[in-house]
C-alpha cells in the first residue's frame, strides 16, 4: 500500500482527544480545584482536609485495608491458579465459577456480604446454631471495629481476587510447560518448581496484578458503604461526602489529589521493585 503517513494519526486522534479532554484535563483540574482558595492559590482545602475529624481514620483505614487485602488476594489467586493448572476434567467449570466475582460490582459485593454479616444474618445464625451466640448481634458498627474491618476485608477479597486470578492464569498460560517439566526431570519438588520456575516467570503478571489491585484498593468505597455506612471512614468515602453532603468540591478535590498521589507512588514503587531485566524476559 502506498503509505499515507497520516492514517495512523487519524485513527488514534479520537482516542487521544477523548483521553486529553476527559482524563488529562480533569487530572489537572483536580489539582487546580484543590488549590483554589478564597483569594487565589492556597492550601486552605488541604488544611481543612488535614483538620477533618475523619481524615486520620480514613487514611489509616484505607492503608490498613490495602495492606491486608492485596497480599491475601495475590496469595489466594496464586493458590487458585496453581490448582487450576492441576485440574484436568472440569477445569473450565471450576475456573469460570472462581472468576464470577469479576463481573460483580463492589456495591453488589458489599450487599452480598451484608446478607451474611447483618445482625440477623447467616454468620450469626451459624454462630447461634453452634451455641456461640445468644441471639442476633450487630457486628457492623463503630463498637465492633475489628469485626467490621474483617467483614469489609473479606468482601473485598471475595470480590477482587478474581481479577488477580485471571491475570495470573493468563500469565501462566504464557509459560511453556517444558520449563516445569525440565525442572521435574532434574528432580525439583512441586514446591521448588513453583518457587524457582513458576514464580519468577510469573513476575510480570504479578506486577501488573499488584498495580491494578493496589490502585483500586485505594479507591475502595462502595463495599465499605454497603457494609458499614460511615462507620468505617475511607479516603474516597470522605471525598464523596465532601462533594455531596458538604457541597465542598475543593476539599473533595484535595482528597482526590491525595489518593492520586498515593496511587502514583505505589505504581512507581512496584515498577521499580518488581522490575524484570530485559535479558530475563521469557
Amino acid at each position, binding site marked *: 500500500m502506498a503509505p499515507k503517513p497520516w492514517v495512523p494519526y487519524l485513527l488514534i486522534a479520537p482516542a487521544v482527544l477523548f483521553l486529553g479532554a476527559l482524563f488529562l484535563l480533569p487530572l489537572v483540574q483536580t489539582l487546580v480545584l484543590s488549590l483554589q482558595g478564597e483569594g487565589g492559590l492556597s492550601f486552605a482545602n488541604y488544611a481543612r482536609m488535614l483538620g477533618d475529624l475523619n481524615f486520620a481514620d480514613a487514611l489509616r483505614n484505607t492503608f490498613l485495608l490495602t495492606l491486608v487485602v492485596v497480599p491475601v488476594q495475590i496469595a489466594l489467586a496464586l493458590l487458585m491458579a496453581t490448582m487450576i493448572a492441576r*485440574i484436568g476434567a472440569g477445569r473450565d467449570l471450576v475456573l469460570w465459577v472462581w472468576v464470577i466475582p469479576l463481573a460483580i460490582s463492589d456495591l453488589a459485593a458489599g450487599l452480598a456480604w451484608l446478607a451474611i454479616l447483618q445482625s440477623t444474618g447467616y454468620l450469626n445464625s451459624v454462630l447461634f446454631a453452634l451455641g456461640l451466640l445468644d441471639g442476633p448481634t450487630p457486628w457492623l458498627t463503630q463498637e465492633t471495629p475489628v469485626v467490621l474491618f474483617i467483614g469489609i476485608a473479606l468482601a473485598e477479597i471475595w470480590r477482587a481476587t478474581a481479577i488477580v486470578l485471571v491475570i495470573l492464569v493468563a500469565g501462566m498460560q504464557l509459560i511453556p510447560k517444558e520449563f516445569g517439566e525440565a525442572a521435574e526431570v532434574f528432580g525439583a519438588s512441586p514446591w521448588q518448581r513453583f518457587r524457582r520456575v513458576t514464580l519468577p516467570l510469573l513476575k510480570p503478571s504479578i506486577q501488573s496484578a499488584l498495580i491494578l489491585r493496589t490502585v483500586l484498593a485505594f479507591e475502595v468505597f462502595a463495599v465499605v458503604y454497603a457494609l458499614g455506612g460511615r462507620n468505617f471512614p475511607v479516603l474516597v468515602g470522605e*471525598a464523596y461526602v465532601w*462533594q455531596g453532603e458538604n457541597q465542598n468540591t475543593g476539599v473533595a478535590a484535595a482528597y482526590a489529589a491525595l489518593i492520586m498521589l498515593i496511587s502514583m507512588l505505589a505504581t512507581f514503587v512496584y515498577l521499580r521493585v518488581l522490575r524484570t531485566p530485559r535479558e530475563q524476559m521469557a
Partner: protein
Amino acid sequence: MNPAMTPVRRLLFWTLVAVLLLWVLLPIWLVAMGAFGGRAAVFQWPKSLLPASLSFDHMAAFLAVEGVANAFLNSVIAAAVTVVLSVALGAPAGYALARYAFRGADAFKLLVLLTRAFPLAILALPLAVGFIRIGLYDSPFGVALMHTVLALPFAVLVTQSLFMGIPRELEEAAWVFGCSPVQAFFRVVMPLALPGLAATAIFAFVISWNEVFAASVLTVRERTLTAYLLAVLSESPLHTRFAGGLLLILPSVLFVFAVRKWLFTVWGISGR
C-alpha cells in the same frame, strides 16, 4: 490431574477446590435468598440455607419502587453509550497500534497505560464541575463519558492484540484481489474480529454497569442503578438492598458467562 497424587492428597485437593467454589457461590446464593424472601426472610431467626418461601413478589415489589425502573433504564443507557463510545474510539486506535509503525505510537501507548496508575473514578469530581457548565451533569450521557474513560484504555489494548492476531497477509490478499483498504477492513478484518469486539463491548458494558462512585457524583435525579442504590442505602430496608444487589449482579454475571471464552484473551492482555 497429576497422576502422582496419592488418594489422600487428591481428596484434600478436591476438598479445597470445593471450599473455594463454595466461597465464591455462597454469598451470591445468600443475597438471592434475601432478595426473593422479602422482609420475613431478612428477619427470620435463625436462618436456614434454603428459602422458607420463594416468590418473585418481593423482587417485583422492588422493581415497582419509585425510581428503580428509571435508574435501571439510566444504567442501561449509560452502559450502552459507554460500549458504543469505547469501541468506536478504541478500535481504530487499536488497529493503528496493531498495523502501523508510526512516530508517537509509544507515547500514545504510554498515555493509555498511564490511566492505570490513577483511580479514574475520582476524576468524576472535576468532571462534575465541567459537566454542570455544559449541561451534561445529571444525565446518563455524562456518566457514559466518564465510564468511557474507564473502558477506553481497555478497549484500545484488547483490540490491538485482536487485530494483531489477524494476519496482515489476509488484508494484503484482499487488497491484491480488488479491495480498497476500507473495503478490506470491512470484508476481511471486521468479520474475523467480530467475536473479540463483541467480548470487548460486553466488558465495557459491565465496567459501566458496575461503577458506583463516578455515577453517584455525576447525578442527582437521573441516577444509575448503582448510584440510586448507594443514595438510598441508609434509608432502605434490608430486603430492598438485597433485591438491588441481586439486580446488579445478575446481568453482568450472565454477560460474562456469555463471553467466558474470551475472558482470558481480554483480561490476560489488559493485565500485561
